[in-house]
């Protein structure tokens, strides 16, 4: 198998020499035009879910593997449905049932799947950089989508978040966005911050206790708040992050009750935000820990639209990757 590095352009291992997207590993460093292309394409895919036949023949004959080393119902099912709606064949491989239990390495697994002429990989792994490793290893025509690697990146989540913001609030270059919660461990927060920055959002805030903020987080171009009321003042968008119980066990936080008192989003707290502010959450939610049910089920929540948009974004990403091959051929169709 040929190594992937020589075909990839410049400093960004995701881009092909012709500037097209070769893999989707991280939002960081992607040109704005690629983000806009994916967002624009997703807009077209949204309406396919409303048709009698919710399918296009775009990836007919292609095989996509969902390779999940971490459990995830929502992300895996939306990737699976996205590939199926594009008419691809889909293999779901979960680590619990795979040969990894017998000691097979990640790259051995990839080699075996490549020998079955798989076209694309959607991969989730607990280690940051795992998707990059696979992208360097696969055949030249195969592509890799990072569906979450450690604390590093979850690019399709970042894209679906900005897609949701664009659809509900318009262009981000006038918006104030607050991201609240466990920024330290959140690949969702990182991907959303990168996507918003690339699209020109002028006011991105992170709101969290000091124990849940990465060092030098300001270098990402965000403003830091430790007080939720201050952080929410006048914002147009609030993204609440899921708080994991192990943060309590690791003594990063006193208790879930205390956390909710200081950082939980309630209707009263939301009054600080713009009256038309929307609330996002990547799910699954801990009701009563980071978000109150009244807000989660209220009129400002766009949490279920995020799921619908996630499907369209994943269809758009798979389409962009599968369609980026041999672009120099003549376009005329007639």
């Amino acid at each position, binding site marked *: 198998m040929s190594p992937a590095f020589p075909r990839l352009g410049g400093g960004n291992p995701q881009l092909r020499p012709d500037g097209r997207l070769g893999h989707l590993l991280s939002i960081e460093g992607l040109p704005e035009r690629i983000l806009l292309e994916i967002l624009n394409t997703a807009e077209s895919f949204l309406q396919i879910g409303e048709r*009698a036949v919710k399918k296009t023949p775009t990836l007919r004959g292609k095989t996509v593997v969902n390779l999940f080393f971490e459990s995830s119902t929502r992300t895996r099912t939306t990737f699976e449905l996205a590939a199926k709606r594009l008419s691809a064949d889909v293999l779901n491989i979960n680590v619990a049932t795979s040969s990894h239990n017998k000691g097979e390495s990640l790259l051995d697994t990839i080699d075996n799947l490549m020998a079955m002429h798989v076209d694309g990989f959607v991969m989730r792994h607990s280690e940051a950089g795992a998707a990059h490793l696979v992208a360097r290893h696969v055949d030249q025509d195969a592509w890799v989508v990072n569906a979450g690697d450690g604390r590093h990146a979850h690019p399709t989540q970042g894209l679906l978040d900005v897609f949701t913001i664009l659809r509900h609030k318009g262009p981000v270059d006038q918006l104030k966005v607050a991201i609240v919660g466990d920024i330290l461990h959140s690949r969702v927060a990182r991907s959303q911050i990168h996507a918003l920055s690339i699209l020109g959002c002028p006011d991105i805030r992170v709101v969290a206790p000091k124990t849940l903020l990465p060092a030098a987080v300001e270098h990402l171009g965000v403003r830091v708040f430790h007080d939720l009321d201050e952080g929410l003042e006048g914002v147009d968008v609030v993204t609440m992050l899921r708080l994991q119980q192990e943060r309590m066990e690791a003594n990063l936080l006193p208790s879930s009750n205390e956390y909710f008192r200081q950082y939980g989003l309630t209707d009263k707290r939301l009054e600080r935000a713009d009256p038309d502010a929307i609330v996002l959450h990547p799910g699954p939610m801990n009701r009563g820990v980071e978000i109150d049910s009244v807000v989660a089920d209220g009129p400002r929540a766009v949490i279920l639209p995020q799921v619908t948009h996630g499907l369209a974004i994943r269809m758009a990403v798979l389409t962009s990757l599968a369609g980026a091959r041999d672009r120099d051929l003549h376009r*005329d*169709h007639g």
Partner: protein
Amino acid sequence: MNDSPEIEPILDQMAAQLRPLLAEDAAMVGIYTGGVWVAQALHQRLGLETELGQVDISFYRDDFTRIGLHPEVRASHIPFDVDNRVIILVDDVLHTGRTIRAALNEIFDYGRPARIVLAVLVDRDGRELPIQADVVGLHRRLAAGAQIKLTGPAPLQLVTRGATEHKA
């Protein structure tokens, strides 16, 4: 080369040919981009009450994995029930027939029409599929490698590029 014939009388003539279909509760769909311009002109001439539909066949192209996606795909939009309806499908230039094949596939993903009538502004040679138009504005025979393209939306003009054009 821009030696565009007068488009308006051609559209009048196409509308006249399509008018008898209106009794069948026909609805119209244009193919992005040029086909939508022609469809808008015909839709207006015929005074159709049903809103004009539009399809972008990018996701249905048979050469998608070779040439990829256009960076600006438009959302298809068919704002009426396709089932058991007469659909007037409109494009600017009928050449290989592959665009029409893709558009037919896409329309069938919305439902099962009673009949589809194909109307094109220009019918040129070079067919690769057994597809022909029911209503044609004008016929063109062009040498291999030549292109004929509709520019618009206003004014609509036909531009021919490449080898010498031969009128049929």
